[in-house]
């Protein structure tokens, strides 16, 4: 079991080098490096205003980095000329404010992106086939058409099936056809998490997922995240829940003044902090 996990840890999913971010003259990130390895859970802690949320939002370019590189799938996605949408499909994100689509039912919220991507790829293939056919009219050697393995109806049916099984997993299948405004914060956040899961992401970024929740709902969201962690989902979590970070994370990063000041296993970082600022921070929050 441990062997397996260590093997898995060898593969780097995403690697950040020298990331900087400026808002006008304000330098929020001053050179952050991070390798996110497959199956790893990373917790990012730090005082407010230290840049941890900005860093997380830079990882999938929700904020465009001012400098540095982010290598994902062998491409530097910090480069503005890259089609970021294609890569975001594989990087899930969960927000502090849930951000479920208010004009869509719960089920539609989960289905929207998978259906969009499936249909888009199918249409692209159909378009290509059209041109192949057109070219074939003038050629002796006919080029083979791209195989279409699916139809739009099938894509939708599959996405719906998947959405329902995800909802069943979090025990909210009876909420499939209601709008988000009727749900509690905890339910919304759990749905936001499975919405991210529906795309089979390689990594999920959590931006303070429990900070906007009533205290009694924090548990249900953290439980779901623990389950994902156990299943080996790669996760990067910005959090104020120190207990959760200690329990779930493989690695904890302490950020301050736009830099990673200290990083290590939860035992090291919480048990034997070296950085003065971290010691001070921990004395206040623990």
């Amino acid at each position, binding site marked *: 079991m441990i062997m397996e996990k260590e093997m898995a840890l060898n593969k780097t999913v995403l690697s950040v080098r020298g990331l900087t971010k400026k808002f006008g003259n304000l330098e929020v990130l001053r050179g952050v490096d991070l390798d996110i390895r497959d199956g790893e859970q990373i917790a990012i802690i730090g005082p407010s205003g230290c840049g941890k949320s900005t860093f997380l939002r830079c990882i*999938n370019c*929700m904020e465009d980095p001012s400098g540095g590189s982010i290598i994902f799938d062998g491409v530097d996605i910090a480069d*503005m000329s890259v089609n970021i*949408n*294609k*890569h*975001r*499909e*594989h*990087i*899930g*994100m969960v*927000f502090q*404010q849930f*951000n*479920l*689509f*208010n*004009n*869509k039912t719960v089920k539609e919220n989960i289905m*929207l*992106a998978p259906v*969009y*991507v499936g249909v888009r790829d199918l249409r692209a293939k159909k378009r290509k086939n059209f041109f192949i056919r057109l070219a074939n009219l003038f050629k002796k050697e006919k080029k083979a058409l791209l195989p279409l393995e699916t139809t739009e109806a099938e894509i939708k049916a599959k996405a719906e099936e998947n959405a329902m099984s995800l909802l069943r997993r979090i025990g909210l299948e009876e909420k499939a056809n209601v*709008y988000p*405004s*009727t749900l509690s914060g905890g339910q919304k956040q759990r749905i*936001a998490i499975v*919405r*991210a899961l529906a*795309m089979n992401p390689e990594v999920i970024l959590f931006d303070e997922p429990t900070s906007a929740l009533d205290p009694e709902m924090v548990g249900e969201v953290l439980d779901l995240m623990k389950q994902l962690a156990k299943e080996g989902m790669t996760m990067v979590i910005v959090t104020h829940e120190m207990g959760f970070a200690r329990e779930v994370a493989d690695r904890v990063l302490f950020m301050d003044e736009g830099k990673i000041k200290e990083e290590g296993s939860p035992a090291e970082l919480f048990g034997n902090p070296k950085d003065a600022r971290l010691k001070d921070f921990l004395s206040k929050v623990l």
Partner: protein
Amino acid sequence: MNSFSEMWQEFVKQFITRKGYENVLKGLGITVEIAVLGLLIGILIGTLIAVVRVMPKYKTLPRVLDKICGGYVELFRGTPMVVQLLIGYWVLLPALDIQVNSGVPVAIIMFGLNSGAYVSEIMRGGINSVDPGQMEAGRAVGLPYSTSMLKIVVPQAVKNILPTLGNEFIVLIKETSIVSFIAVTDLYKSFKQLGDPTYDYTVPYLMLALTYLIMVLLISAGVRALEKKLKKSER
């Protein structure tokens, strides 16, 4: 000066016995047609312009489009509707060498273009009122800007601005009364014709006002009902 009852009798004679109501119904139809189709075109143009104007402007193309749309809005809000109508009919049609049998299509298009300018400002407000997190969530799952806009933000914006759009429709219905400038027989013209035989317009114009008022009240009630229904649909 005739007494009001005499005037009323004359109106009834024109309206019913001489079948003036047929004309009035036709005029009513044309008024509604111009206002409804004009508003639809307006919403289409307005939404497009609003989306262009709220787009992030890192690149040159959105910046140029934004300037063009800004100019469009200033142009149509800065000149009277009558003037736009007259220019459409007497300047653009001959210039483009288009022959028409009636001014109705011209009126529809000009009202659509004009209302597009106003709707774009309404829609821009609506789009800005939608929580930015909605767009972020759309982008975060990999949807492009345009898809997030059209599938997530705009539907919510439309809901937010529905009462204001209802207002725009009311403005439009009333403003169509100027289409007689380009020889279209709308509601106003058809009522005016009822008074033409006697040159006494007292009752026809009062009835005209009443008809507009009833239409506007009906639209207001319709918008309110629709609003309620939309609110319910997300509960």
